Every structure is written in C-alpha cells, then in structure tokens.
C-alpha cells in the first residue's frame, strides 16, 4: 500500500482529453487534407445558421419595415412588446433580436478570422473567406452601421467602433482585392467572382446612405458584370426561385442551402402560418400564427400580378379540401370561425384578430414540411441585380435603360410595362419583387420613406434609420460606443 500511496506523484500532471469533440489544437495539428474544406464549410454554415429563423436578422429587417408585422393577438405574441416596438420604430437597445443578429454576424467573423490565420498560405482560401466576411459586414453596415472591423490582423482585446464609411471601405477593398482569386464558376453556396460583383452592386447602390457619397455608376458597372456574364436569367416562373426544390434556379446567384434534415433554421411556416394551417400542409408541428403583411403593402400589388401569390389570402383549407374552422376565433371577427386571411387587420395591439393579415406565401411550404424548410434561401438573386441596374441607371438619368431592365421584371410578373418611370415606381416595383427577402428596410431608407408614418406607426426620428448597437454587445465590450440618438 505504501508504494501506492506515494507513487501517485507519477501521474500528477493532468492533461484533459476531449473524447467527443475537437479543440483548436486538434484543428491546428491535423494533417487531414479534407479538413480545410470542412472548416470552410463550417464557416459557411455559420451564415446559413439562424438567418431564416424567428428573432433573427431577417426578423428585424422585415418587421421594422412596412411589408411585415407581428400583431399582438391577445394572449399571444405580446412577447415583451418587442415586435410592437419593432413595428412602431420604438425599439430599445436591449431587444433580444438585435443581440441575436449581432452575434450571428460576429461569431461567423471570428470563425473566418481563425480560419484565415490557420491557413495563411492558401491564397484562394483567404480570398474566398475575405469576401465571405465582407458579405457578413454588408449585413452589419446595413443594420448597425458603425461596427468594429475585426480581421485576421486584429490584436489586443476588445475592439472599438469603426465609422460606417470605414466599414464601407473595408467591405469594398475586401471584395475588390480578392475578386480575381475567386472561383469563376456559379456555385450558389459559395462566393465566386460573380457573387462578388453582385455584392458590390448592392453595396454601391446604398453608398450614399452608408458613406454620404453616391456611387451609382459603380453600382451599374458591377451589375453589368453580372448581367453581361450571361450566366443567369430570369426564370419564367417567379416562384420557382422560392420552391422547395429551387437549387436548379437559373436566377438565384447565392443562396443559403437550407435543408430540413441537414441544415435547419428556415422556420417560415412556423412564423407566419395560422395554427390550423398545420392541416393545410400536413406540417409536423403546429405553427405560431405570427408574421403577416400589411394591408397597404398588399394593395400595392395588382390583382393580375403573378407575384400577388407571394401572399396567402382568403379562405383556408385542410389538405383534404375541407374548410378550416377556428373555433377560438374572436367573437368580433367579421370572418367568424371559418379560417380566412384578410388583408385588413383590426389593430396592432392588444387584440388583433387571430385570422387577420395576409401571410407570407412566397416560399413554397412543402406538404409534410418540418418546422425547417428545405427551400434554399436566395440571398442574392438575378432579379434583384436587374433592379439594381435599373435603379442605378435611373439615378444617373438614363431612363430608357432603366425602363428596359425594370420592364424585364414586370414582364415576368405578367403586368404591363412602364412607359415612364419615377423613383416611387422603382421603389414599389422593388417592394413587389423583393417581398420577404429582407430588402424592404434598406430600400425604404434609400428612397427616404423610412421615417414616414404608416399603419399603426407614427413618423419616426431620423436616427431610427440605424439599429442600435445591442446593449448586450456593449456590456460584453465596453469599448463599443452606441449609435447616435440611442
């Protein structure tokens, strides 16, 4: 026993093994040739993540705009008034959705930085990751503006804010400096040269908002690079781009490859459908009856515009064709118990009717869908690039070019072409085309509509054009300075 007692010293130095995961050291020491691909895939998987979920960056972009709302339905969806405040532009700095969006972006950036450090010599990888990081910064510059730039060269502790113009310059150089090293293919799930041009087009389109200096010509040039490549075309069926099996779309330039089994997080059926619609699509779970569109926005669609089918409107049926009946419908609901989505919503809060509001029907809800869709989410779409081209031309006074491109979009929507063009026409067309693609807020700001009043929303102050830096992020990093006005 004595030797046992005193022989313990031999194994006193302890090394914690990890049996069911890997550590940063494991990654650094691995010689597996597939690892780099897996890691790159992981970086991409970050941005697939929660984009399409509730309480996400998609949610704040949509619900703060005039195309989407989450009404407060008595005991449902009060949710600390977060979505009421979001609609009325009275959000506070601590809203959970802001923090989710911030973390969504910056955890991806951290992972990308680590990956670049790890493979400093693989120039193509570094180029691709730098452009991917620029994509994430495009979300940050749009939502939060003055955000810290953290790249692989950052050192020290907590970063400080950069100005929005600095962030703009960083994004621009990240894309331009690396563009030539990117793939010249058309893979929708990774960034390539054409994706990079499309990103630049969208970035320059908003340059005036981001930096104070318009860059319309650059936006047009970048859009032209995409258009003239000839690699993309408008699909004859608008909704093919949003279908469950949309990976073959000739129009989607970059998508988030959601998959109900492999890559969950696109929860739209849960978010927008009425509880009873579970029977319409034989959904695996009961929906939450949250997101709907606004009457005025719905009315901006012509009845013969094919895109009006982006909404679920009117009587609702079960998969077997029987009428759905909501026995808990409010006594005052003029539609009574038979489930009917009406464009008109009786109020924002506190007792919005359960059935009120047309729902988001742009993305196909496959029969038997899970809470996560398998539809790939179009981050960048050729239709959008055509509208960027049209708007950039219009802003430079080239109305005829603008009409050409905007009418391509209208033709596909089976509506009459424009003969003349105003800024509002472009704004409205973008609204109809880009509904539920997280574009409306950016467009409203660029077209000067953001602070106007709309349904159940008063005029808001100009500083609301930027979301606040989330209070939680400031708590975690006291070096951060809040955006003006908050």
């Amino acid at each position, binding site marked *: 026993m004595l030797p046992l007692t005193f022989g313990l010293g031999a194994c006193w130095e*302890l090394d914690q093994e990890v049996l069911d995961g890997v550590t940063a050291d494991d990654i650094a020491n691995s010689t597996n040739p597939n690892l780099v691909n*897996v890691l790159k895939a992981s970086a991409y998987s970050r941005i697939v993540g929660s984009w399409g979920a509730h309480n996400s960056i998609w949610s704040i972009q949509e619900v703060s705009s005039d195309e989407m709302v989450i009404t407060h339905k008595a005991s449902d969806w009060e949710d600390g008034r977060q979505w009421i405040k979001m609609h009325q532009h009275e959000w506070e700095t601590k809203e959970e959705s802001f923090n989710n969006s*911030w973390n969504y972006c910056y955890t991806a950036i*951290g992972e990308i930085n680590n990956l670049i450090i790890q493979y400093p010599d693989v120039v193509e990888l570094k180029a691709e990751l730098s452009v991917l990081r620029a994509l994430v910064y495009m979300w940050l510059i749009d939502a939060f503006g003055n955000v810290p730039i953290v790249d692989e060269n950052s050192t020290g502790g907590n970063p400080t804010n950069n100005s929005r113009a600095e962030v703009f310059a960083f994004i621009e150089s990240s894309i331009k400096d690396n563009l030539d090293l990117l793939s010249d293919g058309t893979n929708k799930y990774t960034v390539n040269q054409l994706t990079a041009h499309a990103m630049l087009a969208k970035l320059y389109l908003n340059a005036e908002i981001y930096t104070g200096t318009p860059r319309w010509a650059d936006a047009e040039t970048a859009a032209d690079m995409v258009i003239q490549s000839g690699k993309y075309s408008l699909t004859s069926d608008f909704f093919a781009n949003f279908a469950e099996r949309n990976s073959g779309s000739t129009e989607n330039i970059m998508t988030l490859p959601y998959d109900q089994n492999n890559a969950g997080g696109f929860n739209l059926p849960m978010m927008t459908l009425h509880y009873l619609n579970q029977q319409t699509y034989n959904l695996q779970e*009961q929906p939450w009856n949250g997101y709907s569109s606004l009457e005025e926005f719905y009315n901006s669609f012509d009845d013969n515009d094919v895109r009006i089918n982006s909404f679920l409107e009117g009587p609702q049926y079960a998969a077997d064709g029987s009428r759905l009946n909501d026995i808990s419908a409010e006594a005052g609901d003029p539609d009574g118990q038979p489930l009917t989505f009406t464009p008109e919503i009786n109020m924002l809060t506190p007792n919005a009717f359960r059935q009120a509001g047309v729902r988001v029907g742009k993305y196909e809800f496959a029969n038997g869908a899970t809470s996560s869709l398998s539809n790939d989410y179009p981050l960048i779409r050729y239709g959008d690039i055509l509208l960027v081209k049209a708007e950039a031309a219009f802003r430079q006074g080239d109305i005829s070019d603008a009409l050409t491109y905007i009418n391509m979009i209208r033709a596909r929507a089976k509506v009459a072409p424009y003969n003349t063009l105003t800024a509002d026409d472009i704004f409205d067309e973008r609204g109809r085309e880009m509904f539920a693609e997280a574009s409306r807020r950016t467009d409203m700001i660029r077209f000067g509509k953001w602070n106007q009043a709309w349904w159940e929303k008063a005029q808001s102050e100009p500083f609301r054009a930027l979301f606040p830096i989330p209070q939680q992020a400031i708590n975690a990093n006291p070096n951060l300075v809040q955006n003006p006005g908050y």
Partner: protein
Amino acid sequence: MTNYLPNLKSLALTIALTLSAILAVNAQSRSISGTVMDAGLGDPVPGATVMVKGTTRGTATDVDGKFTLPLQPEDQVLVISFVGYLTQEVEIGNQSTITINLEEDIQSLEEAVVIGYGSQDKKEITSAVVGVKPEDFNRGNVSNPAQLLQGKVAGLSITRPGGNPNNAFNVRLRGLSTFGANSSPLIVLDGVIGASLENVDPNDIQSIDVLKDGSAAAIYGARGSSGVILITTTKQGKREGATNVTVNSFATLDKAANLIPILSAEEFVERGGTDFGSETDWREELIDDAMSFTTNASISGSFGNSNYMASVNYRDNNGIVNGVGNERLNTRLNLSQGALNNRLRFNVNLSFTNLAKESINDAAFRYATIYNPTAPIYEDTEDAIEDFGGYFQRNLFDFYNPVALANQQKFVEEVKSNLLSYRAEFDILSNLTLSAQYSQDRKNELLGNFWSMQDYQVGFGAAGSAERITRDRAQRIFESTLRYEIDLSDKLNMTLLGGAGMQFTKNEGFRARVRQYLFDQGWNNLGGGAIRVGNFTEVSSYANEDQLNSLFGRANFNWDNTFFVSASVRSETYSGFGANNQTGIFPAFSVGSDFTQIFDMGLFSQFKPRVSYGVTGNLPPSPTLALGVFGNGNRIDLDGDPLTQNDIFVGIVQNSNPNRDLKWETKKEFNVGLDFGMFNNKVTGSVDYYTRNISDLLFNVPVAPGAPNPFDPGRFNTASSTWINLADLRAAGFEFAASVNQIGNGKLKWTPTLNFTIYDKTTIESLSAGDLGFEELRFATPGSPGQNNIPIIYNRVGENLGDIYGPRLLGYTEDGQYILSTTKEDEYEKLGNGLPKGEFGFTNSFMYGQWSLNFFLRGAWGHDLYNSYRGFYENNDPGAVTWNSVITDKTPTNPLVVSTQTFNSSYVEDASFIRLDNAELGYNVKTNSANLSSLRIYFAAQNLFTITGYTGIDPEVRTNDSENLDAFTSALSPGIERRNTYFQTRSFTMGVTVNFK
C-alpha cells in the same frame, strides 16, 4: 472507520471475569442470579456489566445474558451497564433471581460522529456537524435517502414540489453556493466520495452525518462547497455472537390532494367557453388512487472479527396517475473480516440496484386542469378514430386532450447501478493505521421515449416517433490514508491524518431517435422508423473523462477534553481546470472549548463554544469547459446535389471560447457555534451562525464575438460567450436545534426536537470579473401564451439572488381591466423573492408502553411563488373561450377580470406554510415466541395537512425553475410554480416490522 466496540467489550469482560475470580475466593452464602434483556428487542444482552453499587465487585453476563453474583449482607443495589444502554440501578431486596430490561441510550449512540475520513467523539467536534440516526428519520413511504432528512437538519433544505414519485429531491445546504456547478451537497457513502444515492436504500442506513460548515467540508476540497452528507450503512449485527433477521414490509395508498378549483362545465359555458356538448372532469379521468408496496429484509451478524450485513430492498411505487411509477430492487452486502488478531481488517461493501421508472408528459397535469370541460374524452368520428385512436382532439393552440397525452406518450428509464468498495486497514503500530480504499461506482441509464403516431402533440406530425438513450457513468476512486494518534502529554492528545487520492470519472452515452412508423413499435424497434435524419430524429453520442488528484492532511488536538483544535488542508489537481490554474488549495481551521470542564456552568452539562473557518471549492460541471471544444454543426452538402454524397460534411462549431485560466469556485465560510447540554444532557442542542463568501463562480459570460480572445492569446472568439470565473456572493444564516430527551416520568414519554434556520438571503455583491460580466441577470419567462418574452426573476448586483420583478397591480377598473403601475419593463418593481427567510422542522416522539407516536411538522416562511395557474387561467379574457379557468380564494370575481392575462404582482403570493409532513403510530407486540424477538405494527401518513395562504398546487420552496433545463441559470430563477407541476399527494401507509431470533 475503526470499530472500537468489540475492544471495549472484551476489556469489560476481562475486568469482570477478574473481579469474579477474586470474588469467588471469598465465597459467600447468598447470591443473586438473573438475566439482562434488551427492553426494546426482548433479546438477552451478553457482556453487560453487573456491579454491586458502591463496591468494586461485579460480573458480566454470559452469551445468554445470564449472570450470577455472590452478595454480602450490606449489598442493596445492583448497577447494570452496557455500552449503548442507559445504566440501570436495581434494588436487590430479597430477590434471588431478577430480570433486568435495559433501555437503549439514544444519547450515547450519538456520541461518535462520522466526519470525513474517520469519526470523532461528539464532544471533540469543533465545526458544524450534525448526525441523524434512524429513529429521527422521516416516516412513511420514504424511498429516497434525501427524504429521510427532509426538515431534520437546520440549514439543510430538501424539497420536491408536487407528488411525483419519480422526481428527485432538491437538496441545498445553507442556501445556494454556486450558480450551477453542483448545488447539491456531496454524498459520501461509506467513504466513497460522490457516490450516487441510487446505491443505498433508506432501510440500510445506520447514520447520516451532515458536514455543514466550510471547515468540516474542507477535507473534501474542491467538491465540498455545497456541503457534505456522509451516509453510513449498517455493517454488523446488533449483538456480538448473534444473528439478526429483520423483515419490514408496508403498503402505501396515495391520493391526490389540494387540486386547484376550476369551473364546472356549466360555469365554463356560462362564461362564453366553447361548448363541445359533453361534460368531463379531466382530473378525475387522469387520477386514480395508487397503491405502493415495499419490502425490506436483512440479515446481519457479528462473530468475533467477522461482521456482515446483507439486505434486499424491494420497492414498487405507483403514482396517482396511471403510467407514473417506479420499481426498485436493491441488494447490499457488507462484509468485514479481521486478521492478525484484528490488526489487519478487510471490508467489502457491495450494492446493486435496478430501478425502472415510467413517466408521462407532465403537461398532462396542466391540460387536465385547464382543458375544455365540455369536451368528451373520445369521439366516434372516422377522423378521430383513424388519426387519434378515437380521442377527442381539436386543432387549437396549446390544446391537447390530457388523457390522450398521458396514454399516447411514454417515457421509461431503467437505472442499473452498482457500487463496489474495498477497504483494507492495517495497524502498523497500535496507534498508527494505514488504510486504502478502492471503489467503483457505476451507473447505467437506459431510456426509452415514445410518441404514438396517434399522439396529437408530437407523434401525429412525426408519424410516430421513438427514441433510445443510454448513459453510462463510471467513477473509480483510490484513496489511501495514514492515521497516527498519540498522547503528547498527560493532557494533550493529537491525531494526525494524511492521505492521497485519485479519482477517475468517465461519462459516456448514446442516443438515437427516428420517426415515421407503420406500427406503434416504439423504442423496441428503432429500425421500424423510416426517417432517421431531420426533425424529431437524432443520432449522437458523447463521452468525457477526467481525473482529480488529491493530497490532504488533518491534525486534531484534544487538551484534557477541554480545548479542541482541528486544522486541515487539501490540495486538488483537476484535469478540467484551465492549464494556468490546475491546482487548488483548501485549508480549514477550527477550535472549541467545553466550558463545563473549566467553570461551574450550573445547569449546563455541556457548553462548548466553537469557531471555525474553511475554504472549499466547486468543480466545473464538465471537464472540457476550459478548452472551448468544437462541437458538431450543420451537415453541409457543398455542391447542394443530394446525389453526390462524398462532399457532405458536418461542420464544426465552437459553442464557447477556450479559457486557459478557468478554475474552481471558491467558498470561504466562517462559523461560530455553541453545542450545549443541560440537566445532565436531558436537553441538548446547538446554535450556529455562519457567513459565507462565494467567489469565482463558473458562468458562461458574453464576450465580444469575433474579437481576440484574451483567455487564449492568438485566437479569436468564435462564440459569443466564454466560461470564466466571476461574481461574489455573500450569505449568512442562523441555525438552532434542540432536543429534550424523554420528558415525563411515568409510562408516557415525550421527546420533542426542534430545529430552525433563519437565512440572511444570498446577496449578489458582484456579477463580474474585470470588464466582463453583468449588472444583472434576468431569467424565467412565465411562458406561452403571451408571457414568453419578459423574464420575471432578476439577479441584480447589490440585491438578493432571485428577486421577482414585474408591474404592480394597483386595482381594477369597473369593467374588470387591470390598473397596472406600469407597462414599461424598466419601471418594474420588486414583487417578492422565491427563497425562504427561514425553515423549520419540529419532531414529536411519544412513547407509551408498547405504543409510539411520532409526528413531524415542517415549514418554510418568507418565500413567494408565482402562481402560474392564476397567472394564465384566471381572467375572463379571450383565452377563456378555449381554456378552463381557475377559481381560487384569491381570484377576483366581482367584477371578473377581463384583461388579457399579463404578469403582475397579484399572482405573486406569499407561500409560507406549515405542513404535517408525516406521522406514525406504532405498536410493539409483546411476544414470547421462540422465533420472534419483536414484532412492530405501524400506521403512517404523509402530507396530512398544510396551512398556507398560497392558492397554487404546492407552497413548497422552488429553489430551481423546473422549466429551465440549463443547470446554470435554473438556480438563478427560483420562485415559480410552473403549470406542469405534478399534483400533490397524501399518503397512508400500513406496515409491519418483524425481528426473528
């Protein structure tokens, strides 16, 4: 632990025999003979000393308890004594034969107190340690060792809200000492550190000792912060040279109690509820009186240097809801054998337990309360029969037929655990003992979860789903100690203990879930589920292994039984600490003095003030927290083409960033106490006051994602949080315990025992470390519908832990709308706190001849609870069309409130309570049978009544939030009674205990 009893006994015998020999020389004409019996058991007592009072003449009883003693004319009184019994004096008179019944001396049994790595005389104890013996345990159907102690030890809070027999007890000593590392005291079972409670049946327990303060627990170092509970099982027979066979068997009837009043079907419709035309009392449909059965049998014996105890314990516990229950078979074998004239001693303790539990979805309790009372259970429509097995279901939000829910989802768990412990002790010298103990504690859990394809809540959408989970835990400990005891002078005794230990823990498990079945085959045929990826499916496994090395030492000094000093230190090296902080040192010191040895203290027979200070720690709950391990992310198909599968990978994600500095939590505790005895120890008790400071708590703290990681230089934060040590908590408390031993002169004897604790609730002094941390932490949203975004439990720096915040209800408008103090979250007020100001337990034990009556009152005061049923289902709001409403004593009815239910002060209720926790009436049947030594019949009742103003299900303290499964934040959100709480139960037990000769 050394057993000194045999030695004492042989010493007594030797003396007695010598005396007899001397006496025999002076043979006398008169003598007295007799038998010494155990009054309780009716067994003879061998080895008892029989002396003539005032002389040195005496003898010892033989194996049959018989003695013969020559007398001299002046002899008048015999004094009969034996260890463990009250000494008795008997008038000789003219008797020549005599029978003496010795009463057990309960006080003296308490003399030895088990402390870590040994035992100590109670008089020498200088820290807050409480021993509890079987006669003090709770009565009735108690199947969990923790329940034995509920309310019995000041400062030890043991709770299990609701009556679910499968739920574990929350055990907390002196309040919360960690956020989530391990808030329950460390269990040390027969010297095995960290043993699981499954390994011991309450029936086999000889004593439980609770190390309350920091100095007592510090010998367990980095595992001692939440206190330590030492459980000692029975190792030997009650008498030398005899065998005991004991059979104890009882049956228990459980009934539901204290159901919250709800509207009848008629009243529901009157209020505008949807009328489905039927009438169902859903709770009646769900509940049934339940019978449970328990049998314990044990054999024990002591023969020379051999001792043994073997037992089998069978418990079949059924809940008041069909489908809830557990069945448990435990076997124990404790063997010890001495060799080399008992200088070398071997112990083997083996315990094997099989436990099978079955459970239902607890949401059934909620729906049974609030489901539409006009709905039928079944409906005879083609759709219902085809889709839901005939059960009535409607597609409404949060609306599931509770009977269907209880029947169409099943959750079972089989636990197989065994504890093997081997110990050898060798007396190198008579005062130098080397010991070594090796133990292996294994626990395997096999779970099965099943959702029928006709289960409307999950199974219907999933087309039937089933899951198998297995979890395996193995802990191996090797410890060795060297103990040296010496009298340094006439008056100064010193005991030194040194030791080293190694602990290896391995956890691993596997989990698989599939869906879409053709038949409801459940977990027995996972292969029958067609879909194995995606929603409602799972394939995963985990494993982790860690090592903890310890060195420890302790010195105890006893100066003339007057001054006592103890000092100890333990160093712990743990593989799960960060590389920069691998070893922690945990010192302790305590001192006490019995003033009755120095001064004349009048009534006091003991008056021992003591002071102690100790540092303890808490280990990270997972050994890889410091490493920031990467886990699995999405599966990614790089080209998006499902036909090519060689480009599909599972990404990696880091859920927390590495922290090379991560270390143990630290608790520093100061304790002053007083142990007292009065009237020759007729009254005994103790008083303690403690203050504790807890720092370096482990918490996953938000950091700047994407920024360079200061805890792992050279890398970036890829997660938005890092595990760090932070925060400072301060708590204090006052504890009192006293007992009066057997009041009353005649046949009726009353032993009251009271203990209470007054807490100075935990104050949060800081929630940060450097730049990182929080000003406040908010948790616990009441839930869906409508109340799922505003947390109501605040933990603010400078305030108490677990304050309840919300708007204050100022009143109602005439038409029944709330008038709230504010709708802004920033203006919420403190509405209460879920942790109690104090707790008490009051035991009363009465003896009257062969009768015994024992009842136990327990309670807590000064804690609040959010009554979720009222908070969601009280108003006549739009929800009342769908859900039934509760009508408690606190429900406003004139006018009915019509506001949409939102959280406010009116739902936060004072939940102070007094409960008649258990009572037992027992009768010892006198027996002259050649085979029976005793026969006891008893009736017990549990939870007979509760006095409280609380109108929810159970006013019991909620130390944790039952709906928050994150261990780290669950303890930070006390005070919410969730809607899924199992109903309270009231139990009636009838049993019999037989001791065979």
